[in-house]
């Protein structure tokens, strides 16, 4: 069982989360050439080692997170909110 330190909820089992995918993908502008969209939607670097990926805490705060994880050893290097502005707004509200 992997355990992810959700910045909002604390350390939780990965079964509370849903895996998104490669977090390094930057989607092109809506009017970008089709080839750019093809590459962003379909092509993956499929890193063996450290990669940044998205997870959603679906059975918790439902926030999207950016997790830096080793895809060979499963070591988790960092967890941070995917939308830092939203995160700081929430912290301000507390």
């Amino acid at each position, binding site marked *: 069982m992997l355990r992810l330190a959700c910045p909002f909820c604390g350390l939780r089992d990965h079964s509370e989360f849903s895996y998104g995918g490669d977090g390094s993908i930057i989607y092109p502008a809506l009017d970008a050439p089709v080839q750019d969209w093809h590459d962003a*939607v*379909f092509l*993956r670097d499929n890193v063996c080692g450290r990669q940044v990926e998205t997870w959603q805490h679906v059975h918790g705060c439902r926030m999207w997170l950016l997790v830096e994880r080793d895809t060979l050893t499963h070591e988790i290097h960092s967890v941070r909110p995917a939308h830092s502005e939203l995160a700081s707004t929430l912290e301000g509200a507390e």
Partner: protein
Amino acid sequence: MTRFTAWNVFWQGITGQKGWTRQWRDPEPKAHYDVVIVGGGLHGLATAYYLSKVHGVQNVAVLEKGWIGGGNAGRNTTIVRSNYAQPGNREFYEHSLRLWENLSHELNYNVMFSQRSHIALLHSPGAIDAASRNYNTMRRTGTPDAEIWDLPTLKRAVPHLNYAANARFPIIGAAVQKRAGTARHDAVVWGYARAADARGVDIIQNCKVEGLAREGGRITALDTTRGRITAGKVAFAVAGSTSLLWQMAGLGGLPIESHKLQAFVSEPLKPLLDQVVVFGMGGAHFYISQSDKGGMVFGGDLDWYKSYAQRGNLPIVQDVAEAAMSVLPCLGRVKLLRHWSGVVDMSMDGTHFICKTPLDNLYLNAGWNYGGFKATPASGWWFADLIANDRPAPMIASFDLKRFERGLQIDERGAGPDCKLHG
């Protein structure tokens, strides 16, 4: 290599089994091969065999980073079927099934192919409609053994499933392919290795590719842990590690992610289940058969996150055990013997690639998702055809990397471009 014949088995039996020779040689790598196949798994070895047998290509090597049978060849649930509905897939898998039917004779090796039926349980009128559409499509396109069973027929064939009316998903019928079944996975990879070796293919184990020498649009040599090997043509058949080699060749991204899939085997039982039974409903996914040794062999979903680790996680063990209990409650006290995990290429549309690449002398066989085992004979057959003739035959024309650009994906599940959903 000693051929397996009734006489040889008898003779060795009365002379102490001392006369058998080794199944394949252990050659030192030569400096040059006309064709180098990277990956000594089922597909790589089948490709080498058909290259030699059908196309007469001499001087072929298969490089394997570990040992024959140590990767996904020994990490699957051994199911063979051809119940696909999408154009391209259905003809390809049916061809594969027909090759399976003669494989033991072809290889002079008993692969224990057992056509015991593949029974996919159905739980709603909608599911019966969808399965009827698929299975009618199969019957119309060359797979004559597709059937839809009603509940009484199913109960006669498999009496001990959970037929409770108050089950969460009551069973109301089944989609059945009667020529489908199982084969002994180790025997298949050993059989292909032995048959390829007998035709002069060099199988080089403990030989990991660590670098590729490129000259313009060609790969000229492979740097391996056992020295540099120059090659006329290079073929990748390394499911799970395809992206690593692809990037070594400087070719960038692929529509593939590496995920891991677990399989399980129980302690041996007396004969209990004479078919392959599949349960897929909502979030559950479960398939089970009984091996000839008596172990219940079963599996379920992917581990849901990308990984190159050949070890499974525990939540999936629990998921699969729960699915087992909902379908076959009689397994409740059976002990698990072991479970293992293999790294599979999950592609963006759930379908594989057998194609040419941006490099002139490089050929790709990858992206087998859950389906690599059953595809073995046809995969080797058509990949050999591609390498020998340097053009895709019509049978595999749609299995190229460009299909995403054309908008013609072969998405059997209709799940969209998310690798983990194509289970």
